């Protein structure tokens, strides 16, 4: 099986190691965003509202109208926070997905703002509604039952507790089953919920385990960041204390050193946030990539459809092991393979496919294959995932890419079997895996980074025609 929960859970660390610059970029972006959000919030909430709050600590509002300006200001403030944080989150999410799924598409630290981000915003709102519905439904129902006296006393307590537990389980269940919707939507440039749901079928527990592990890593990073931040603040506080004999608590005396410490704390906080972002959402993208790689691209005749359903893919696995090989070694190519509507007939592609197949095979056994799939002579075997698989697991990366406990690694399996198989279906996949063959204009959908957008063949102006090599890609 190509998808391993433990392996995917470490994707964030691979990302950090391979693209430290991107992490710094995310931290910088988050710092700027925080300044903008706090500054904007102050402006919107308004000095008047603040003054009102300050003066009105003991004030009692006689009527709603009297309190209306304050309520309006608060409402505008909350609305502003929601909108800005959603936008920030969409940019950050898309950046992580871009770094994992379209590493050639650099942007500024993989951050952009366009269709991908807007679709992520739609999904963020969808997930908020979904979880709101679950929690609101469960507790709304319970409160109604309570109000109507159907439940009371210890029974009510037990019901609320059970309701809480049930809501937790529902949230986790739907959260995991739909967890691949954001990366899938990103990769396919189109909102996908149903497909993401079916992609997680049979992998619920593995995905849950992956998310729990990623969460544990994120918690460790968060606590570590807090500890360092507090140590900085503490050291500053002690320094300030030592300056003053006798020891005083006049904060004004401390302000310079404490401000510097606060700066340090904020810096540590934003870097920690960027690391957590990679560590938690990197695995999500990796899980999507690996699970898609498990699925087989459809035969060329079905290429106008958006990829196979789970059943279809299982059948297809038997038909074309070579295509699986290509998909395994070229996870993105498998996305590319599904939707390709080529300007060139499949026969032409088949020639390229044969060459690509040879190359893929060669590179799969070469741990030292180059870092990026976009260079001539290189396939996705050079991708960290395929590479780690190819390197045999004993040597190299410490992140547990190959697992002794895993009964069969799909990569060697598929690699071994494909020369024996006829493969009518794989040319698009191989062609996508071998982008150096693409030279005609109008065939940009064959580029792995751009190939996810078959329905908008020209709708990716941000995609370079010939994506540059990625010097940041990991070299193991």
């Amino acid at each position, binding site marked *: 099986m190509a998808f391993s929960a433990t392996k995917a859970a470490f994707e964030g660390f691979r990302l950090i190691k391979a693209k430290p610059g991107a992490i710094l970029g995310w931290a910088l972006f988050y710092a700027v965003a925080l300044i903008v959000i706090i500054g904007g919030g102050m402006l919107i909430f308004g000095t008047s509202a603040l003054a009102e709050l300050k003066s009105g600590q003991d004030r009692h509002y006689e009527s709603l109208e009297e309190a209306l300006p304050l309520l309006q200001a608060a409402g505008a403030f909350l609305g502003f926070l929601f909108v800005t944080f959603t936008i920030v989150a969409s940019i950050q999410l898309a950046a992580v997905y871009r770094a994992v799924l379209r590493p050639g598409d650099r942007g500024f630290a993989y951050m952009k703002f366009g269709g991908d981000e807007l679709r992520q915003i739609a999904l963020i709102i969808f997930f908020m509604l979904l979880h709101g519905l679950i929690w609101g439904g469960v507790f709304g129902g319970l409160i109604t039952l309570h109000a109507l006296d159907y439940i009371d006393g210890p*029974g009510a307590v037990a019901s609320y507790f059970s309701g809480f537990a049930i809501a937790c389980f529902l949230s986790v269940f739907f959260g995991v089953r739909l967890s691949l919707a954001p990366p899938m939507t990103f990769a396919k440039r189109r909102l996908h919920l149903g497909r993401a749901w079916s992609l997680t079928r049979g992998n619920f527990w593995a995905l849950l385990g992956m998310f729990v592990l990623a969460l544990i890593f994120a918690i460790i990073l968060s606590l570590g960041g807090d500890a360092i931040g507090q140590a900085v603040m503490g050291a500053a506080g002690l320094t300030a204390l030592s300056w003053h004999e006798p020891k005083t608590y006049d904060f004004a005396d401390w302000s310079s050193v404490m401000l510097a410490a606060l700066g340090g704390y904020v810096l540590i906080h934003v870097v920690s946030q960027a690391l957590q972002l990679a560590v938690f959402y990197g695995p999500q993208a990796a899980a999507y990539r690996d699970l898609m790689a498990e699925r087989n691209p459809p035969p060329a005749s079905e290429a106008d459809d958006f990829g196979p359903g789970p059943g279809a893919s299982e059948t297809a696995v038997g038909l074309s092991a070579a295509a699986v090989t290509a998909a395994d070694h070229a996870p993105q190519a498998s996305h590319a393979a599904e939707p390709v509507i080529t300007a060139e007939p499949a026969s032409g592609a088949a020639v390229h496919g044969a060459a690509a197949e040879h190359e893929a095979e060669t590179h799969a056994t070469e741990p030292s294959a180059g870092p990026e799939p976009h260079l001539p002579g290189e396939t996705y075997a050079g991708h960290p995932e395929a590479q780690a698989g190819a390197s045999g697991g004993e040597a190299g990366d410490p992140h547990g890419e190959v*697992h002794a406990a895993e009964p069969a690694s799909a990569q060697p399996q598929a690699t071994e079997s494909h020369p024996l198989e006829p493969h009518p279906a794989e040319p698009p996949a191989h062609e996508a895996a071998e982008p150096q063959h693409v030279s005609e204009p109008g065939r940009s959908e064959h580029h792995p980074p751009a190939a996810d957008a078959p329905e908008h063949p020209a709708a990716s102006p941000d995609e370079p025609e010939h994506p540059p090599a990625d010097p940041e890609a990991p070299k193991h």
Partner: protein
Amino acid sequence: MASFSIGEALGSGFGIIKRHPLAVLAWGIVYFIISMMPLLLMWSLVGGDFMDAVRSGGSADPSADIATMTAFSTKMQMIQPLSILASLLAAGVLNAAIFRAVLTPQDKGFLYMKLGKAEFWQALISLCVGILLFIAFLAVAMVGGILGAIVWFVGEAAGGAVVQGVGITLVVLAAIAAMIWIALRFALAAPATFATGQFQLFESWTLTKGHTGRLFGLALVLLAVIIVMYVIVIAIVAVLAGIMGLGIGLNEDAFRSFFERGPETVMMTILPFILIMSLVSALIAGAYYAILLAPWASVYRQLVPARSPAEEF
């Protein structure tokens, strides 16, 4: 399906103690020293403040007290992460040493101790398993809560506190069993991580499939061994305490006058006792952990035989 022998697993810990008594002793002392480092650091940082506070017993100037206490608590807060790191490091070094002695005895290191990747993975996997089990505990508690509520209502309808009592007891027992089951399923994560040199958490779940019963048996036997060890240690402590008690005097007046001598004197009297106890625990810690941890490495090796060098190259 390959299985494993509980006796062989249990014997592995004692085997290490027998074969490498010096190493086992050293593990305990190193574990003790690493764990103590933050405490020593803490004492060097706040010991003065603490002793000041003890001596003065509340001075006339409250603001000076507040300043002392703030400095004290700030320093404590700064040391806390260090002590967590130290305990992780100690666990990493100790686990790896024990697993090295069982799984790769030819790799001697310094009394099987090293400081490298294996130690880092052991520290990380211990932490992850701990947090994972905590999350599992929350999930089990939630399911248990729902079942408990259902049993409660059904019991009420069925008309009896007895039914409710029995039902709730069953639910609690089931929850405990579920927790033990989950813990056993993750029991091979640490040895598997050591043996493969890679992070192996969910792989333990696959490895232990079909072996939970025997693993439970092993855990029970280990528990019995540990209880016996505790009884022996407590007996030693009781004897030591008795000696010290004789020194103080066992009657009430002597006892009272002992504590009337002032906190500093009391502390200085108790300190040697604390030090002796720490030394004793340091000396037996290596053996204790070897007995407790080596069996899981042995189980792992029995389930996943080592590849011969010919296979590896």
